[in-house]
C-alpha cells in the first residue's frame, strides 16, 4: 500500500513509453533512465532489508540453545 504511488508513476512511465514507441518513434530512453533507476530503488531496498531480517532470524535460531 505504501508503495502504490511509486507503482502508479511506474505505470505512467510505461504508458508514456508505449505512446512514444507507437506514435512518435524512436523512444528517447536516455532522459527517462534516471527516473527508471530511482523507481526500482524502494523495491530493491525492501528486498535487501527482508533478506537481512531473514538472515538475522536464522542466525538467532541457530545460536539459541
Amino acid at each position, binding site marked *: 500500500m505504501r508503495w*502504490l504511488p*511509486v507503482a*502508479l508513476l511506474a505505470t*505512467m512511465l510505461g*504508458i508514456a513509453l508505449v505512446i512514444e514507441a507507437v*506514435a512518435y518513434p524512436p523512444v528517447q530512453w536516455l532522459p527517462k533512465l534516471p527516473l527508471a533507476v530511482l523507481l526500482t530503488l524502494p523495491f530493491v531496498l525492501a528486498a535487501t532489508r527482508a533478506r537481512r531480517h531473514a538472515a538475522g532470524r536464522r542466525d538467532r535460531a541457530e545460536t539459541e540453545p
Partner: protein
Amino acid sequence: MSSGLHLFLELTTLLFFLVVVAHALVLRGRDGAWLMGSMLALGFVRENCVALYHWLYRFADLHLHLGAAPLITAIIWGYSIYIAICWAESVCGEAVCGDSLETRRASPRLLAALGVFMIALVGFYEPFLELVDMAKWQDGTRRTLGVPWIALVGYPTLSVPFVAGWCHIMRRHRGRARLAWMTVFVVTLAFGHAWGLQWLKGVLGW
C-alpha cells in the same frame, strides 16, 4: 489524433491523482488531507500565474481547465510531489507525516532525496509533454535531450521548500492560524517560484 491523446492523458492523470489523494487520506488521515489540499492549491496558483502572465511556457488547448490553466498542470504538482515524498520516505526510512503525527518533520536527508527524485522526473515529463504538444517552452529555451535546463532548477526548488515549509507550519500552528499561514505560504511560494524562475531564466539566458 492529438486531441484524443490529450484527453486520454488528462483523464489518466486525473484518475491517478484521485488514487494518490485516496492513498494520502487512508494512510495519513487529516495530515494527508492537509498535504493534498495544500499541494492542489500550490499547483493551481502557480500554473495560473504561468498562464496569466505568459511566463516560462504556453499550454496546448486542453479539454479540462481549472481557472486559466489546464487541470492537468494544476494537479500534476501535487501528484508528483506526493510520489516524491513516498519515494523519499521509503528510501530514507523516515516519515514526513502520518503514522506518528508528532513527526511532521523533513530531515535534510529526506529533502535531498526528494530533490533528486524531482530532478529525475524532469527527464520523463518535459520531453514527453513537448513531444505530444501539451506544453511548449518559450522560444530559445536551452535544453539537452529535450530537457530544458531551467526545469532542472524549477522542479526541486518548488518541491523541497514546499515540503520543508509545510512540515514547519503543520508542527507550529493549529486551527485557523494554520489555515492562514498555509494560505500565505502556498500563494507566496507559488507566485514567487513562477516569477523567480522566469527571472532566473532571463538572467542566465537559459
